[in-house]
């Protein structure tokens, strides 16, 4: 076999011909983040339903429709406010949790197995922690986007009686963050996406239904009530609801916030370990 050498005038790719390398000052984790940003620009239409349509549908169907029936009875149980007011902040926290968890399962598997984007990043100067923090920051961006939209929809439904509601935005993001980091840690240990279905069925969905989202946990029998009060989503729901309704509730609120912060921090530490185990061999 013989080969004809190509002409020398074609694109110059030699190392010494390139101008001296200037590196941008953007931190490595933000460079990883940028990947998600660009990828999202190409695929954002797909997430429109979950981000924009769901809050409207939920608030309209359950809040307005069901709320109408409930308000004709007694609304004492929900704190003497219209049911829609009660429900909306619960759904806000629940949605933040769902997005936080969801974005931390399949996309992590894609990074490791399906598209291997993590490995592409690791072949460059980026380190495992950069890959992790870049992705985590992106997930929090998604949670923030969804929470912001949800709050805007809530305002349009006239369910935001207090200016405290502004503080419900970081509270919702914190709720999403508290779920995101531990779920990322978990996802990085999985070989298939089967476990994500299990996580949803036995974790996320029950939490969504029984953490005071749709009805006060006081409606549950005693021992279930104790369990419900200990769940992470309960903290997020209570925090968001207190703020939206203008009853932040001092120490309680602080307790909820600390709970969520600790869960987030623990999740980050766990994810650092599981990412390193999975990606560096």
């Amino acid at each position, binding site marked *: 076999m013989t080969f004809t050498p190509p002409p020398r005038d074609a694109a110059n790719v030699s190392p010494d011909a390139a101008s001296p390398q200037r590196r941008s000052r*953007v931190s490595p984790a933000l460079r990883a983040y940028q990947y998600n940003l660009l990828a999202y620009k190409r695929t954002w239409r797909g997430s429109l339903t979950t981000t924009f349509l769901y809050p409207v549908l939920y608030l309209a169907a359950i809040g307005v429709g069901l709320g109408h029936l409930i308000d004709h009875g007694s609304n004492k149980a929900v704190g003497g406010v219209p049911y829609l007011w009660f429900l909306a902040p619960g759904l806000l926290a629940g949605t933040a949790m769902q997005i936080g968890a969801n974005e931390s399962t399949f996309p992590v598997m894609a990074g490791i197995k399906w598209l291997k984007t993590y*490995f592409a990043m690791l072949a460059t100067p980026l380190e495992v922690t950069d890959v992790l923090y870049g992705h985590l920051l992106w997930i929090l961006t998604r949670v923030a986007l969804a929470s912001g939209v949800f709050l805007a929809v809530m305002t349009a439904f006239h369910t935001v009686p207090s200016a405290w509601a502004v503080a419900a935005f970081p509270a919702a993001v914190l709720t999403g963050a508290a779920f995101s980091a531990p779920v990322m840690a978990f996802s990085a240990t999985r070989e298939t996406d089967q476990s994500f279905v299990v996580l949803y069925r036995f974790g996320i969905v029950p939490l969504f239904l029984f953490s005071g989202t749709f009805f006060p946990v006081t409606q549950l029998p005693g021992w279930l009530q104790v369990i419900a009060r200990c769940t992470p989503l309960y903290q997020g729901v209570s925090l968001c609801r207190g703020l939206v309704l203008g009853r932040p509730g001092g120490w309680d609120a602080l307790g909820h916030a600390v709970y969520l912060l600790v869960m987030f921090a623990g999740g980050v530490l766990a994810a650092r370990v599981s990412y390193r185990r999975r990606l560096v061999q």
Partner: protein
Amino acid sequence: MQARRLTKRFGEFTAVDAVDFDIHVGEAFGFLGANGAGKTSTMRMIACLSPISGGTLQVLGLDPMREGPQIRSRIGLVPQDDTLDLELTVRDNLYLYGRYFGLPKKQLRERVDELLEFARLTERADERVDPLSGGMRRRLTIARALVSSPSLVILDEPTTGLDPQARHLLWDRLYRLKREGVTLVITTHYMDEAEQLCDRLVVMDAGRIAAAGSPRELIEQWSTREVVELRFEAEGHQVHGDRLADLAERVEVLPDRLLLYTDEGDATLDAVRSRGASPIAALVRRSTLEDVFLHLTGRSLVD
């Protein structure tokens, strides 16, 4: 680059077993071996993707264990899996990769255009990667590895799974890099690839280096000048091998053919015929690295 008693263990399993090698600036260096010989593990240690388990390794004069990001900023890696984002366009894949290196946007855009040209993908630049052929994806992966103008490019099985035409186009691109002074480190289980591309290479088997040298040196040292390949009716190879053994320096019996190692192929073939053996096919050829590998390991490279 220098490795001394470089070792990689995964639990009980030793993938790379105390290997020594030196790779010089500007040369094309190959790791030739069958699947599972430890080539990829060695490669991953060089690329600072995998911590070393023992021995010492220096890459570009730096320590991979402590200075991984600095080393990786100066090398380009072409992994066995392409790790391209199939949903994104060809251009975006190059652009984003450059951003991982922290290249400034303006400089990077120009660089991406150059690389599209180099990989002959300019016309497909704004299409998604998904529908591209294997050869195109491979060229894109190589172009991507060049985005930071590395002085060392590491290619893990660069042409596995490609058709001959795509391979030749790829080799041609690699020649160009070599002529421009880029150091190439290539793993392959194709002996023709190693022969064509590599200035020097090591033959790896079961985590160890079985032999080292230029392709010509290896052939001279471990094989004869020529080989007579004989094909007989089914099942007859072992019998014929025993009968003809004294006609050659060495005989290899493979399931589908018989190899006689000799310096004068035509004379040996005449001798075979005069013994009354009648192979259904006979061929005299020069020795290749495949023969070296067969001699060193007792196995052929590609099953």
